[in-house]
């Protein structure tokens, strides 16, 4: 019997700002995901993508990003909270695909300089992800007061996040597997 395809779960770093603490969070989650058996992952930096700004929807997409989303079974969004919402650049990037997302799992890692752990970016992102056809999971990772969670050079100062990420990834992988089976085997009636 052929080996099953590894589950594809890219991690999207959702900000291009200088000094972004979200990069530390994204690298940590990506590293934990790399330890999972049967999972293939990559870290996508929205700041390095070639997205058009003078078109809308699928006309804007970076072909490499679109290809990665096509093969993805689940995605991790690492989203800082900018005025209660995801960065505009991340929204623009997400809007470049549609069919690639349908019936795929999505988990949010929220990052905030303040004490609320990015809860508002999670709440305001849910209707966006739903409209894109993604299926959100009920586990999140909340990096509140992120300046205290990582050192300036990215060292994790609070080890409790490793266990939180483990739980988050467990649920995401379960949902990714379930939706892959459904997507590929259960026909719409």
């Amino acid at each position, binding site marked *: 019997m052929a080996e099953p*395809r590894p589950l594809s779960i890219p991690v999207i770093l959702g900000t291009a700002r200088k000094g972004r603490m979200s990069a530390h969070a994204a690298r940590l989650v990506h590293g934990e995901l790399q330890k999972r058996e049967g999972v293939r992952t990559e870290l996508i930096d929205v700041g390095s993508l070639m997205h058009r700004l003078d078109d809308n929807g699928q006309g804007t997409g970076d072909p490499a990003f679109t290809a990665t989303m096509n093969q993805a079974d689940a995605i991790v969004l690492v989203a800082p909270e900018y005025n209660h919402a995801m960065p505009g650049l991340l929204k623009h990037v997400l809007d470049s695909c549609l069919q*690639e997302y*349908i019936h795929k799992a999505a988990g949010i890692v929220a990052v905030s300089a303040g004490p609320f752990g990015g809860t508002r970016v999670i709440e305001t992102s849910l209707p966006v992800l739903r409209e894109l056809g993604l299926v959100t999971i009920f586990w999140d990772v909340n990096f509140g007061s992120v300046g205290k969670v990582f050192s300036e050079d990215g060292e994790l100062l609070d080890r409790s996040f490793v266990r939180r990420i483990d739980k988050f990834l467990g649920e995401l992988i379960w949902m990714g597997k379930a939706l*892959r089976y459904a*997507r590929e085997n259960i026909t*719409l009636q």
Partner: protein
Amino acid sequence: MPVNPMQCPKCGATMNYHAEKVVYGGAGRVDAELGGVLEAMHACPRCGHVTSRTAD
């Protein structure tokens, strides 16, 4: 469901028709009752490729 299942453009396997979504302002035949283009979503059980076409 579509009369003719799609063949995967990547590997040739028969794809599974797993979802529909109305796309407003999309290219294709507008469904007058739904108010937009009804896209049928297909996934390949062999290679995982996904694609869509206007629903039949």
